[in-house]
Every structure is written in structure tokens, then in C-alpha cells.
């Protein structure tokens, strides 16, 4: 059914072209779009190592301290000898203590202390304060679509050329004040770093990682169609390559049936009766917790291309995603009540870039009486629907389709702004229509 598409070869070809441009190309910038789970971090680490090995010291710019520390650890895993500098802030606890155990890593709050190291890594915010240094020949900007244009402006003087890597489908950067007066300007400071870069340098080579190794064959087409309509990607695995099964049979309850549906099809929608609720809808929160509890109790095992034998789906391979922090807090409390520990429970913003076997999502519009721009934001739903390797269970109140119909998309349009796809309203409908085929009604 997949004649002529060899995901490994396609991905290798793309990576090869990117590295070739990075190491030997003459462009000042290279942009790489990476859909969820397409091997962005692997690419960043590989590009950094190859640049260093070729005798090009480089700086790496990431957006959060967690991302920086994660990259430092990954680099050390690949090459424990390579001298790496971790530039950090002068706040207390500026970096992950794990870094103290890595012999190759030098840590300092001053860029001068790290001069001469092969790779120096920090956040964009910290790099912005670095002044009066000799510019680096090369830089890698990670999560470039989550970086604001003004943050790039503050650091772009530090390097001569750069590789920009990121996922255009995730949450956009935002500002806490209005920035409409600059909309349409090529250098709108509130836009993403990539949109400014490309507006001024349209000739730069743009690459795309074409294969998601994370998303299963059941999820890639939906996520690609709904969130990347003009830049499609495919799954690295085929139907049947992955399997989720349970040691304990279903007890016929809603949570068990939705888990069976999700194990079978990759998606499950657990639908609670229509009702307007507060954000921390106690019934929905409890349903989410119960699904997680049953998933662990029933001895879920995952079969995949990664291992010969089925691997148990333990708590650390499961995540719960929500739109709001108070919802995450309520789910954590409900899980604690059921004696579940070790499951990551967080908002979409904080789940960005992470990967699990199974995710349970409290739908952003569940029980809401209104659909605001926040709840309709494409990136939020995209993050929540693209963290899993095997299955995603969505818990939601009935009636979201009608709610969407009552809040038709009436987005203002700024002249001169390149349209970003897709529309949140439309993407929500598309995902909902797909989920409706995997619906299980709530029954405790």
C-alpha cells in the first residue's frame, strides 16, 4: 500500500541535503521545518557535532533552559569528549544539576569564560546579553518558530551564518501587549524569527524533514492534513508496525472501551454528556484520571520497531495534556487520589517537544460555553494531538462541534502578513470529525 515510499531513505536524503548545505553551502541561513517527531533534536545534535568535527566552533541558541540542558546531555551522550560550554544566567539554579556530572561541560555565566570551546549553548534570552565578542562563524537556532523576531534581532550579530530548525505547526510566540501596528512589516518584532528571516532572505534554502518517526501511521495523515495542509509529511512506520495491547481484558466501562478503541485505531474519543462546566470540570478530570489508571492497571504493552519484544507502557511513557494550568493541577490531584504517580501532566506549552507512548488529552473546548482565540489556536491542538507513538485518547464533553458552529472564524486580517495555515476553527473541526469515528460514550 505504500509502494515507492521508503521512509528511511527519504529522511536520510533530507538530512544529507541539510548537512551538506550546513557544512558546505554558501548561504548565510538554512531553514529546516520539522513536523512532530521527525528527528529535529537528532538533526541538531548531528549538525553540531559535524560542524565541530570539521573545525567550525559554533554557538547553539535554544529557547528554554530545559531545551538547552537537554541538548547538552544529548551532545555528551554522542561524544563525551567534546568540549561544550553551557552559558547560563546568574539566577539561582540556572541549569540542571545533571550537567555537573558531565566532565566535558564547562558552565559559566560569562561568555568570556567559555571562549575557545567547540560548542557553546545557551538560551536566546541569555545570548541577548552577550556583547563585545568575536562573532561565531556558525550557529544553530533550535525551536526557531517559537523564537520571536525581536529575540533574533538581539542575537543575530553574534554569528555569521546559521541553521534554523523548528516545527511551524506548534504554538506561535506571543507578546503580552498589542503589536498590530507592526503587522505586515517584514521585521514585525512579535512575529516568529523564521518569518522575519525568510521575508528578508527569501532565497535561503528551505528543507523539510519528511518523516515523523514518532507519530504512528494512524496519526500522521490526520495531523499532516489538519495542521500541515501545504507541507505534508508521512509516518516512518506502517499500519501494523506498532501494536498496543493489554494483559487484562476490558471490563466494559467507558475508560476500558476507549482504551481498546485507541489501541486498535490509534485514536479514542471518550465523550461525556453535554454540559457547560468550569475549566476544571470534575467529571472530565476524573474521567481522564480513570483512563490513565486503567491503562496502567490493564498492563498495557507496546510493540514497535524499537525493540524485539513488547515493552510495558509504564507511567513514564504516558502523558496527560491540558489547555490550562489549573486543569493540569486538577488532573494531578485526581491521579494522586487514584494512587497514580510518575505520569507527566502538563499544558500544551510545556509538552512541546516531548514524546510518549500514550497520551490522554482533555480537549481544550470540552464543556466550554465559548470558543476563544486561545482555545482555537491551531498550535495548541497540534501539540496535544502529536505527542504519542501509539495512541491518543481524547476526553471531551459532547457538543463541541455545535460550539464551533456558534463561533465561526472571524479573524481579522492584516495586510501584508503571510498567511499561516491552517485556520484554528477549521483544524478543530477536522480533528473532531476524525475523532467522531472513534467515539465511546462515557459509562463509568
Amino acid at each position: 500500500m505504500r509502494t515507492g515510499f521508503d521512509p528511511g531513505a527519504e529522511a536520510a536524503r533530507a538530512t544529507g541535503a541539510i548537512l551538506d548545505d550546513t557544512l558546505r553551502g554558501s548561504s548565510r541561513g538554512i531553514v529546516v521545518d520539522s513536523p512532530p517527531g521527525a528527528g529535529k533534536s537528532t538533526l541538531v545534535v548531528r549538525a553540531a557535532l559535524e560542524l565541530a568535527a570539521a573545525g567550525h566552533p559554533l554557538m547553539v541558541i535554544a529557547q528554554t533552559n530545559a531545551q538547552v540542558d537537554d541538548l547538552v546531555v544529548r551532545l555528551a551522550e554522542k561524544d563525551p569528549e567534546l568540549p561544550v560550554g553551557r552559558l547560563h544566567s546568574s539566577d539561582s539554579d540556572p541549569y540542571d544539576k545533571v550537567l555537573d556530572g558531565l566532565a566535558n561541560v564547562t558552565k559559566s555565566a560569562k561568555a568570556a569564560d567559555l571562549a575557545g570551546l567547540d560548542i557553546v549553548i545557551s538560551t536566546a534570552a541569555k545570548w541577548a546579553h552577550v556583547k563585545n565578542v568575536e562573532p561565531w562563524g556558525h550557529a544553530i537556532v533550535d525551536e526557531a518558530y517559537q523564537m520571536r523576531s525581536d529575540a533574533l534581532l538581539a542575537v543575530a550579530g553574534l554569528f555569521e551564518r546559521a541553521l534554523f530548525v523548528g516545527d511551524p505547526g506548534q504554538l506561535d510566540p506571543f507578546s503580552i501587549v498589542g503589536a498590530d501596528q507592526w503587522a505586515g512589516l517584514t521585521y514585525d518584532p512579535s512575529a516568529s524569527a523564521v518569518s522575519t528571516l525568510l521575508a528578508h532572505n527569501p532565497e535561503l534554502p528551505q528543507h523539510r524533514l519528511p518523516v515523523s518517526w514518532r507519530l504512528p501511521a494512524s496519526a500522521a495523515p490526520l495531523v499532516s492534513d489538519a495542521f500541515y495542509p501545504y507541507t505534508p509529511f508521512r509516518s516512518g512506520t506502517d499500519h501494523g508496525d506498532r501494536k498496543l495491547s493489554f494483559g487484562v481484558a476490558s471490563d466494559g466501562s467507558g475508560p476500558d472501551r476507549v482504551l481498546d478503541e485507541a489501541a486498535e485505531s490509534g485514536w479514542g474519543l471518550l465523550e461525556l454528556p453535554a454540559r457547560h462546566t468550569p475549566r476544571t470540570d470534575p467529571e472530565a478530570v476524573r474521567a481522564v484520571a480513570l483512563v490513565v489508571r486503567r491503562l496502567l492497571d490493564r498492563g498495557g504493552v507496546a510493540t514497535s520497531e524499537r525493540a524485539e519484544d513488547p515493552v510495558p507502557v509504564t507511567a513514564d511513557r504516558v502523558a496527560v495534556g491540558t489547555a490550562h494550568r489549573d486543569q493540569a493541577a486538577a488532573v494531578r490531584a485526581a491521579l494522586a487520589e487514584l494512587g497514580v504517580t510518575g505520569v507527566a501532566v502538563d499544558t500544551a506549552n510545556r509538552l512541546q517537544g516531548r514524546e510518549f507512548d500514550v497520551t490522554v488529552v482533555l480537549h481544550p473546548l470540552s464543556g466550554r460555553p465559548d470558543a476563544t482565540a486561545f482555545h482555537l489556536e491551531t498550535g495548541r491542538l497540534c501539540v496535544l494531538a502529536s505527542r504519542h507513538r501509539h495512541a491518543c485518547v481524547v476526553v471531551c464533553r459532547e457538543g463541541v462541534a455545535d460550539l464551533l458552529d456558534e463561533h465561526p472564524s472571524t479573524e481579522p486580517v492584516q495586510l501584508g502578513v503571510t498567511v499561516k495555515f491552517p485556520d484554528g476553527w477549521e483544524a478543530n473541526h477536522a480533528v473532531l470529525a476524525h475523532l467522531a469515528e472513534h467515539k465511546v460514550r462515557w459509562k463509568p
Partner: protein
Amino acid sequence: MSLITTLARLEAVDSGRAQPLATVRHRHLTDRPLVLVPLTTAGEAGAPLGALVGTDREAPRLLAVAQPRDRDLRFAFLAELAEAVLPHIEACADVVEPAERNETDPATGKKTKVEVELCLDAAQVIVPSRAGVEFVRLLGRSMRFRRTAEDNPDTPYPAPARVPLLGRWLTHYGERARVPGSSLLLASTDLLNRHWATGQSSLEDQHLGALLSWIDPPAGSSGAEAALRAELARDGEGQLLCPPAGPATDPDFDNRLLAPAIERYDRARTALASAEDGLAADARLGELSAAEREIRSLLARVMLPTWDAVWRGLDLLRQLPEGARAEDRWTRDRWSFTAHRDRVRSGEPPQPRRDDAVTAAQKLASRETAQAQLEAQEALDDPLVLAGRRLAGEAFLGTVSGVEMAYTESKRPSPRPLVTVRTDERPHLGERTKVYRSLDGKPQTAEFVRAEQETDQDGEILLVLRILDRMGRSKEPAPGSVPEPGERIAWTLFEHDQRGGPKLPDPEETPWTHGGPPGADAATRAEQPDPVTPEDLL
């Protein structure tokens, strides 16, 4: 909308009167604000119809354009507006105090203190609504690139002398109004909406008359009834009793009264032009003046209720004591005012049409700082605002129940006392979350250590905090710098002061990612006048 604001609105519905959203006034009001009530012509961009302007509520100056499509009449209006507004600004520009400012020496990079002038007060301008602020911006844009005959004798359709200058000032005011917490140019509706919650939606709150009806309803009437009257009630001629606060007019006013009056004026003008002798001309001049008077009186009639409403709003606001930190923000407005005065005096060109990359980024950064600052200051100044932050888990009030001395483990130990606080609130505290309290007007930092999870019958918990700073340099904390048992203290999870962002490159060093330096000709291009053609006559 936060739940506490929603509750205030519902209380307003229930009581028939607006309910307080603040217990102090969060914006500075000067003793002599200039009120400007502008009107514009429907369907035209930047074609003013009239204005009431002035600092004396009993004596507004009426400006009117009898035929808004006539360029000469429009210029006359703008020249008159300049004469009404600029003296107000210039009066403030000349009264200064000495002040110091940090400047970086471009050669050495060292920071030095420079003695400069700071205007003692800035000229404040109040317009009725947000649309009014937008109109000020539009007027500024339409005027600042104009050329006068003095600039260039060959300029086609030269503008009156002070019009470009007014354009530059209005542009500055319009831009400053985008800075959160600024009070240089304020909309009356924004001011009132910040301080009161009505029983209607925020959309309906944009109607100044309806808004005032809720805040200060006439005796014997509920806010809802009075607001409905303000929105819809019409007189025998079908005209609204409370016309829109502008700059847009009511279409019924345009169609039934204004259009016929303008038509009469046009006819009188044509007649005058074709007058064949002095006697006829005199008579026709009389007709023309009468037609003009009629338009002026029509416009005055629709603007006066708004003029009065703006002043009434100011009365209501002055009944609230000013928040302690509002003065601090006003000082920033004075700096901004002074800086613009200096730019004008040093002969700098008008503000460009669009910001360059660096300026845009700088403005965004400083506005984000101002926004965070404003939110913190309002909460610190006003228990009602703080209540909203407490409800959101971003602040809490607690009683100190114990203090245990502790020290850092270094050669010269510093005090790090552990303070136990009893509270019934549930702030969003995580491990080592920083919290702040105000100590003599300055923030003191503590970090969250642990919660003692024994909830008593009142739902109270004990939170242990470690005080981190502002205790002096010696081993023992300075007197009064450590909370004492029994003290009731407000802690915030947000910082009280904002750090400025990183320094951005100079515009001449704009990096390649942002298009590189703007180029030598960019500045000259940016201030070119709009092309003027006969078509410009609307």
C-alpha cells in the same frame, strides 16, 4: 474576563449601578487637562468635521468645517486646532526642573550621569473614546509630513505654518498612548472602565453616555434604563439625545440635518461666486455666513453632550484618591514628553511612517516591561486589584506565625531566616518559587520552602518561606527587615519591579536577518510628504 470582574458586573446588574473595580485612581490626572472632542466625516479618512477643545469646561472652543471636502477649509480647521492645542503643550514645555539621566558614552562604553532638563508637568489630553485616540493618531499621520510655504515656497497646496508641528505632537501622543499605564493621552471610556464595572458588556461600555449612565445614573432611574436612553432615545427630529462620542457621527444626523445644511452652504458659496455686483455680493455673503453658522451650531449641538460627559467622567475619577505608584508612571510620561520636546527643538525630522526593525523591537520590549510594571503596581496600590491576583493564586495574604533564624553556609554567613506564614489561600507555589513583599516601598524577596499540609478547620495552611535579601550586610538582619510574628503581610508571586530587556543593536547595525541597516536614504525617504495631487480634493 477574570471571575472577580465578572462578579462585579453581575453585582452591577443586580443593583442597577456600576460597581467599583478599583479603590484608588490608577491614572494620574493633571490639574489642567486639555479635552478634545473630535468629529470626522463619514467615509473619509482624515477629513475632520469639527471639534470642541479646551481646558475650561465652561468655555470650549468650537472648530467646524463647513465643507469637509474642501482642502482650504480643512487646512483652516487644522491651523485653528494647532492654535488651540500647541499653546497648551508649549506652556508645559517651558517649565522645567533639573534632572539626571544615565547615558552611555559612545566612545568608552562607560555609563555617566548627565544633567538634563525634565518638564515639571506634561500636557495631558483627554478624548472621549478609543476611537478618539485612533483619530488623534490619524490626524497626526495626516499632518506631520505636510510642507508649509516656509519649508518650500514651491510646495503645491502648502499647509498652514504650525500644522506639521501639531502633526508631530499628535503622533507622539498617539504612540505614547500605546504604552500601558501611560496618561499623556487618555480615552474617557478607558479611564472609567478601568475603575468601574457596569452591568453591560465591555462592547456597550465603549458608549460614553451609556457608561456614565451606569456609573452615575440620574435620580430615580436604574443604570440599565438610563443607559438604554443614552443609546437609543431620540428627539422629535429623530436625533439621538446622546449622540455618539465621535469621531463618527450618527448617520441620521448626517442624512437629515448635516447634508442639507452643507448643501445650503455649497449653494450659498456658488451664489456668492457668481454675484455680479457689490450689493448682491453683500447679501450673498450674509447667506453664506448664515449657512456656515447653521453648520457650526449643528455640530456644537452634537458635540456638547460629549464634552460635558468627558468632564463629568473626570469629576467622578477625581473622587478617587490617586494610587501611590501612579505618580511614578506619570514621571515616565514627563520624560517622554520632554524627550519629544527635545527632538522637535533640535530640528529632527518627523517620525517616519513605519518604525525600523530596531525601533519596533525596542518599543515592543519597553511596552511589555510597562505592562508587567503596571500590573504589579496596580496590585500593590489597590487591595481590590490584589484580590484578583489572590484569587488567581498569584498573591496571598498571611499572618506570620513563627520566625526561625538560619544562615547561609559560607565563610561569612548571611542571614536566611525561615518565616512561617498562616493563610487560608492557595497560591500556586512550587519548589523554590520566589515571592515578594513590599518593605518600605522596596521589594523583599523570599523563596518558598515547604507547606505544612495540616489543614485546620478554617482551611488554613502553614507556608514556610526563606527570606533572601534586604537584611543588611552584617550577620544579624537589620532591625525591621525580618517579618515578626503576628504581622499580616501580602506576598506576591510576581516581581514588583521590571528589569529592562537586553540592549539591541543600533539601527545602523541591523543584522542581515532583519534586512540589514536601513540605508542612508531611508530616513529621507521616510519623511517625504505624501504626494499631493488635485485628486487629493475629496
